[in-house]
């Protein structure tokens, strides 16, 4: 256990203390204690910056289950560090914000902070671990913590619905991912990511390459809300706003991005990886931005905007993975997309976090998030309005904010993709920038809608539930203002990030492309001259403004009036259908009738054994070893058959008992014929007692009636019983013939030989029962004892149904 291990696990350890702090220190808001942890971790992770900048990596080992190759190995390079800083940095701000957002009187803060810390620790584990199985463990903990946080107000039906939905979808993806990881282990024999990257060519050449890749990507796409798995994210907006800001904008939804970036070194350079990720990302980008325009709820807009921005980052990772194909690190043509992805990842975390917090403030102060009821808040909430303006302008991609820079780089990366000349890009490639551009127009549009509908226009207090609307308390504003300042800072001085964070992260995503001592060329500027990207941006702005101004024309269309994503219907119908289908299947087969279950059992055995016998050319008969039949046996057999066949059809109780007795006594007679005196004796006694028991029981039981069954059921009964009997007969005959031809001597000769010598007994059967195989007899006595006790308790104990048994 090194310092780094303790740092990763520290949130879990602190989470244990939270309930005690909440219970015994009621004067102070619990959040203040929590705040120390992410802040300390943030400072701690900042200390690694200098080493990753020089291209060094830190790795710490800790054996967990070494025999299975599962080790809790931590590994810090530029990519992990970027995510760790995001998690702890945004975590600090979110905890600070939540201290003012959640009241310590009305809310159960102990739950909230325990879940939040659990999530933080799991997320750190995901980004710092080097071992796939450890990543999977932490991955599922993030799913669980996220569901707990979404359903924080568990009294609300919608919270529960959203939590369930996110749980099902992300856990489905997580399990697929586990399958993918297992396949990778099968291919390369290791769970370590770095060893996998070193063996990337083995993975590439394997026949399991594609299934492993698709399964891993399912995990990444579900977590990162890619199309069509994005439907859980809008419903996750039922969570408290700090949770939405933290989980559903900055950290958890980027776990899938992290996974894709991390495994680019393993799968990158293959056309499947390129196309799957690019297409998924672009579809998500377009679908998310178009859907965001339709939303009326501020958080709904932000949810779909998050979806579309995640799609943007994902598509950039897809396009950038082609750099592996060319193995050329210093040609910006291939690596710009990765640069844009990393840069936009940072930018998105800053502006989306601040926007969520701003929306939380509006919700907190006005009591509504519906843009149809809001308006004119600019003068009432000047600071919130400013922060929102900065964040939205950045999201829309306006200069001088950071969103503009990453949007330019995004266009550059997408345009570059058309020049690769691989993977059929010369024909299909032109679709990529076109889709990206259309999505950007819609992004611009919903940013405008969000700002102007909320802050400009006429203030109408009558629509709000709160009497007196005013600016939020200062504590709530600290975090969004800090993030807003970061947006501006990164916009004005992007090169602060360039070689400290972005370049090491790129080296982490594209391992082994650079020669030792080389660095990616990261230089972000505002002005490139008159290039296509600039005209694209101008086009986005112009078209967006035109669309916004003509909003009154398309506001009445069905497109705008509908809010819910159509894929929700698929999910809901699928969910209901699954439940109804399972119930239907259960209703069909679980009838509650003993007869039906017995028919299943017998039918299955008949089919199975019948098929096996057919397969091995059975039944076989052997007439060699048969013993002769004495004449009187025939008479006995005929009587026996008659009585047995008559038993099921008799409706007279006495007759039934007598016939059953007859069969039992004839069995005893057979034992006499087969020279088994002890058996005959026992059988006679037992049969007598059984007959007496039947008599006693029948005295208390109702009269037997002729069974009323339909002809069909009757036929089935006959078929099943006859075929079952025939099958047993055939199996026994075959077994006997095979046993006699196998030539294995019986072990009984030993008993015959040594019965007198070793056990001092003459009756061989009895010697076997009490001497050679005494255990059977002891336990058989136990069986009889238990039977006696249960009969006594059945008769003696009479419960009315309310006693404590």
């Amino acid at each position: 256990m090194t310092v780094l291990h303790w740092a990763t696990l520290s949130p879990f350890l602190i989470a244990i203390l939270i309930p005690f702090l909440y219970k015994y220190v009621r004067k102070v808001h619990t959040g203040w204690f929590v705040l120390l942890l992410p802040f300390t971790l943030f400072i701690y992770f900042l200390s690694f910056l200098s080493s990753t900048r020089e291209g060094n990596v830190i790795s710490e080992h800790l054996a967990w289950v070494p025999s299975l190759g599962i080790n809790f190995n931590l590994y810090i390079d530029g990519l992990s560090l970027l995510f760790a800083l995001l998690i702890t940095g945004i975590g600090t701000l979110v905890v600070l914000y939540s201290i003012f957002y959640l009241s310590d009187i009305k809310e159960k803060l102990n739950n909230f902070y325990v879940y939040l810390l659990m999530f933080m620790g799991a997320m750190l584990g995901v980004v710092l671990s080097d071992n796939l199985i450890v990543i999977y463990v932490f991955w599922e903990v993030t799913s669980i913590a996220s569901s707990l946080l979404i359903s924080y107000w568990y009294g609300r039906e919608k919270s529960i619905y959203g939590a369930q939905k996110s749980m099902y979808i992300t856990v489905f993806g997580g399990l697929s991912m586990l399958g993918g990881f297992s396949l990778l282990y099968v291919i390369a024999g290791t769970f370590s990511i770095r060893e996998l990257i070193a063996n990337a060519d083995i993975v590439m050449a394997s026949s399991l390459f594609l299934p492993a890749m698709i399964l891993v990507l399912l995990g990444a796409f579900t977590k990162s809300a890619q199309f069509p798995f994005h439907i859980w994210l809008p419903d996750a907006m039922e969570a408290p706003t700090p949770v939405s800001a933290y989980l559903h904008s900055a950290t958890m939804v980027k776990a899938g991005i992290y996974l894709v970036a991390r495994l680019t070194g393993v799968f990158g350079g293959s056309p499947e990886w390129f196309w799957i990720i690019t297409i998924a990302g672009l579809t998500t980008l377009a679908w998310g931005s178009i859907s965001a325009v339709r939303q009326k709820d501020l958080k709904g807009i932000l949810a779909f905007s998050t979806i579309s921005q995640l799609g943007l980052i994902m598509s950039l990772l897809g396009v950038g993975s082609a750099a592996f194909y060319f193995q050329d690190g210093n040609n910006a043509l291939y690596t710009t997309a990765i640069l844009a992805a990393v840069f936009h990842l940072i930018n998105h975390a800053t502006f989306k976090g601040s926007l969520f917090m701003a929306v939380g403030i509006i919700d907190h102060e006005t009591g509504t998030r519906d843009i149809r009821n809001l308006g004119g808040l600019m003068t009432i909430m000047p600071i919130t309005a400013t922060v929102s303006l900065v964040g939205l302008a950045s999201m829309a991609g306006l200069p001088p904010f950071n969103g503009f820079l990453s949007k330019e780089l995004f266009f550059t990366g997408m345009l570059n993709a058309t020049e690769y000349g691989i993977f059929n890009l010369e024909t299909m490639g032109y679709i990529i920038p076109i889709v990206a551009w259309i999505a950007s127009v819609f992004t611009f549009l919903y940013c405008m809608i969000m700002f102007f509908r909320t802050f400009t226009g006429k203030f109408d207090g009558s629509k709000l539930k709160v009497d007196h609307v005013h600016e939020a308390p200062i504590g709530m504003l600290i975090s969004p203002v800090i993030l807003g300042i970061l947006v501006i800072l990164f916009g004005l001085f992007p090169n602060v990030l360039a070689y400290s964070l972005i370049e090491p992260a790129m080296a982490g995503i594209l391992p082994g492309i650079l020669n030792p001592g080389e660095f990616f060329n990261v230089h972000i500027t505002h002005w490139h001259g008159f290039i296509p990207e600039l005209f694209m941006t101008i086009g986005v702005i112009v078209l967006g403004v035109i669309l916004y101004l003509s909003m009154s024309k398309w506001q009445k269309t069905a497109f705008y009036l509908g809010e819910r994503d159509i894929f929700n219907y698929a999910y809901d119908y699928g969910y209901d259908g699954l439940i109804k289908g399972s119930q239907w299947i259960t209703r069909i087969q679980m009838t509650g009738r003993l007869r039906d279950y017995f028919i299943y059992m017998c039918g299955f055995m008949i089919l199975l054994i019948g098929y096996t016998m057919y397969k091995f050319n059975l039944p076989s008969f052997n007439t060699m070893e048969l013993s002769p039949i004495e004449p009187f046996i025939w008479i006995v057999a005929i009587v026996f058959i008659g009585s047995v066949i008559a038993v099921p059809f008799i409706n007279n109780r006495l007759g039934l008992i007598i016939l059953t007795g007859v069969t039992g006594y004839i069995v005893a007679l057979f034992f006499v014929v087969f020279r088994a005196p002890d058996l005959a004796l026992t059988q006679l006694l037992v049969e007598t007692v059984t007959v007496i028991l039947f008599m006693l029981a029948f005295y208390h039981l109702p009269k037997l009636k002729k069974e009323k069954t339909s002809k069909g059921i009757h036929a089935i009964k006959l078929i099943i019983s006859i075929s079952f009997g025939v099958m047993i007969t055939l199996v026994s005959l075959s077994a006997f013939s095979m046993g006699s031809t196998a030539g294995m001597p019986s072990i009984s000769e030993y008993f015959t030989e040594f019965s007198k010598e070793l056990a001092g007994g003459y009756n061989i059967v009895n010697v076997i029962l009490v001497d050679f195989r005494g255990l059977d007899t002891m336990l058989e006595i136990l069986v009889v004892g238990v039977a006696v006790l249960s009969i006594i308790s059945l008769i003696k104990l009479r419960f009315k149904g309310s006693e404590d048994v």
Partner: protein
Amino acid sequence: METLITILAGILVTAATYLILSKSLIRVILGTAILSHAAHLLIITMGGLKNGSVPIIGEGDANPVDALPQALILTSIVISFAVTAVSLVLAYRTYQETGTDKLDQLRGDRNE
């Protein structure tokens, strides 16, 4: 002889299965009792029905029949008797408590 006994056992199995598939509890118990007869006959048949003496040393020739299946059957007879007895008492108590021995009526609600 073995073939004949095996066929008899098959007939026993047929009757037992038919009984177990019926609607009244008492017939099901009868079916299980009859099924055990079939099993016992099969066990002794599988050991072979050679002509030999009773498996007691000092009785007749020095070639007794196989004693092991007999020991197994003896154990089995006792166990099946115990099970039959318990089932019978269970049926009797069931009838006392519920007033029926019809399995369809003992089924309870559809959704239980």
